[in-house]
């Protein structure tokens, strides 16, 4: 808002005495109390719906525990974990999950960047149209997107085979859901279609934060379009790119809905989330399922740590929380 540009210098200080905590005045004590009173309920709910379940899962994972046979619940220590970690199913599902994550995120990053550029450059007259269009995949529920792509490729109702019949290797009776690779290919397409808009919006926001004057300066300095992109724009939106990557990677790693709808885990297309679901909800193996859940959680934490430590993603600064 132009009426309220932040005043420079001194004005920022007299406001609340941020960061000065040695002696606490009544006003700041009251502020603390009010702060926790207001934020407390949300905080408590978040903890209750996540911290409690994951602790329970950790606890359950140490038992041999079937819901169909609750009397025989017995403590078995880490044996559930050793069962899982020595089973090929776990490693297959982990590999499938990682494959989906890497492929979709990589494609989405490139595609999303292209979309962001087009949106950035689009004439203001058609910008609302493009913006509305790009939001639609984001807003369409994953299950619907999965059905749409499944039916498009399926043998009985699809049109893809008849449209793409001229390509080598595709004919009227190509069964896309008949093999691991082909199934995963379709799953990836559905995932990419659905989530690229989100990444492109984040990248667009990042692009918009690179000052136009830098572009102009680079132009004057004689940089080509590609050089400007690579040496000016991208380095300046690195934070936005990294945040988008992190969020999408974590999201992609949890892929479940599309697998459930499109393949049901057939032909070795089971992902880690699906495996956990199948163990608990379908087979009522609470002990084993909890162990898979805990492992999944550990994987997510590892990915997070990898991004934050390895790629130096500073979430705080990227989110203006420094």
């Amino acid at each position, binding site marked *: *808002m*132009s*009426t*309220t*540009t*932040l*005043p420079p*210098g*001194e*004005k920022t*200080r*007299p406001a609340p*005495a941020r960061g*000065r*905590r*040695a*002696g*606490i*005045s009544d*006003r*700041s004590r009251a502020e603390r109390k009010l702060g926790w009173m207001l934020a407390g309920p949300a905080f408590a709910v978040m903890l209750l719906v996540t911290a409690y379940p994951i602790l329970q899962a950790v606890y359950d994972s140490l038992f041999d525990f079937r819901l169909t046979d609750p009397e025989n619940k017995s403590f078995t220590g880490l044996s559930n974990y050793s069962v899982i970690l020595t089973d090929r199913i776990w490693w297959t599902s982990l590999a499938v999950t990682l494959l989906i994550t890497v492929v979709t995120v990589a494609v989405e990053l490139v595609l999303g960047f292209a979309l962001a550029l087009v949106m950035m450059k689009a004439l203001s007259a058609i910008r609302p149209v493009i913006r509305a269009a790009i939001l639609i995949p984001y807003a369409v529920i994953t299950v619907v997107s999965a059905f749409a792509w499944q039916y498009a490729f399926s043998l009985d109702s699809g049109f893809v085979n008849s449209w793409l019949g001229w390509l080598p290797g595709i004919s009227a009776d190509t069964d896309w859901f008949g093999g691991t690779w082909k199934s995963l290919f379709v799953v990836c397409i559905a995932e990419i279609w659905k989530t690229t808009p989100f990444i492109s919006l984040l990248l667009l926001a990042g692009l918009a934060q690179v000052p136009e004057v830098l572009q102009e300066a680079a132009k004057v300095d004689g940089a080509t379009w590609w050089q400007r992109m690579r040496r000016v724009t991208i380095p300046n939106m690195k934070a936005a790119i990294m945040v988008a990557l992190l969020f999408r990677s974590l999201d992609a790693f949890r892929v479940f809905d599309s697998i459930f709808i499109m393949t049901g885990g057939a032909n070795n297309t089971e992902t880690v989330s699906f495996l956990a679901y199948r163990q608990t909800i379908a087979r009522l193996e609470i002990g084993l399922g909890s162990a898979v859940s805990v492992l999944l959680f550990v994987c997510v934490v590892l990915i997070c740590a990898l991004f934050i430590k390895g790629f130096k993603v500073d979430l705080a600064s990227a989110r203006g929380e420094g």
Partner: protein
Amino acid sequence: MSEIKLQNIVKKYGDGFPAVNDVSIDIRDGEFIILVGPSGCGKSTLLRMVVGLEDITSGELLINGQRVNDKAPRDRNLAMVFQNYALYPHLSVFENIAFPLRLTKGKFSDAEIDERVNRAADLLELREHLQRKPANLSGGQRQRVAMGRALVRDADAFLFDEPLSNLDAKLRGQMRTEIARIQRRLGTTTIYVTHDQTEAMTLGDRVAVLKKGVLQQCASPRELYEQPVNLFVAGFIGSPPMNFLPARVDGDRLSLPFGSIPMTPDLARLVEGKELVIAGFRPEHFEDASVLEPHRRDAGVVIEVDVDVTEWLGNELYAYVPYEPDAAVAKQLEELDRDLDGEGMRTQIVVALDAKSRIRDGDRAQLWFDPARLHLFDPETGTTITRDEDEARRIDTENEEERKQALERARLSDERAKEKAAAV
């Protein structure tokens, strides 16, 4: 109508750092007082304590003799114009101005609100913008709406927090005059925070100069200019700023980087026993000796200097003269430079000469000045050795009389206008 008394006001933040330290100012009814100082001097904090947005750590704040330390802002009946105007973006100009009146619930009828807003709008020439939203206004218009919101209620005092700092130079000048006119006309006690010394000098009946939370001097603009109490005030007031030079006392002469000058007996007595002092020259007290009439020339001292750069401004000419700093006072002057938000670039003096002067870059020039207008400062404490208390008191009385006359004139012309209106 109101008097505001600040008694030993202290503001300490959590870490014990006093942002405002022991400030006492008596603000008289109808007075226009300026709080001025470099950034971080605590002037805005002081203002926010007066209005009640900031707690007072210790000290007393009295409005019309009543202690208001613990009163909420709404109970102090003060009106404030914020630096960024703080216009409510969802309300029209009319509703923005009417906002304080609407809050009183029932005290004003719609017709009264209408009348008051329109009166304020007329005063500020906002009539044709009343239905617009703040986002569609120019900076100057927004500023006027913010003032309208302050004017519309019968506030005991107006508080301004750097109200002109977001405007461009030309508009700033216009609005400055406008604020002065309105304040005189309404005769409302006003506290005005600024870092711009032109605003301070032109608007204020009195100006309070603050440094690091400590009040340095609170006096009329003329007294600040002619009789500053210390180095800081002397350096802060005046543009271009006062030149400070190391001066060694040498019997009845003062030896400066440009040579030695004679002292009057009065001056010699003041610096007796001191070896080294800091001499202050205002740039505008120098003249180009070559264009001066002989009789004036003989009344002062002429020094010969090498001019480095000149700037011709049409109405005057600035000449810059570099000099070698004296190690003995270098630290003191550096610190002063820092206190004044300076960049510590180079040691040079600046002189403002008549535009007719033919001095150009690189010339060796003869400069004239009157040693009686010299200020001398104690290098240890920074206090002004040459300050004349009697003269300061005389200026003060004169200033107070002028202020009362101005208010009276404004009152009379207001009455005449009312009579005229009644007659018609």
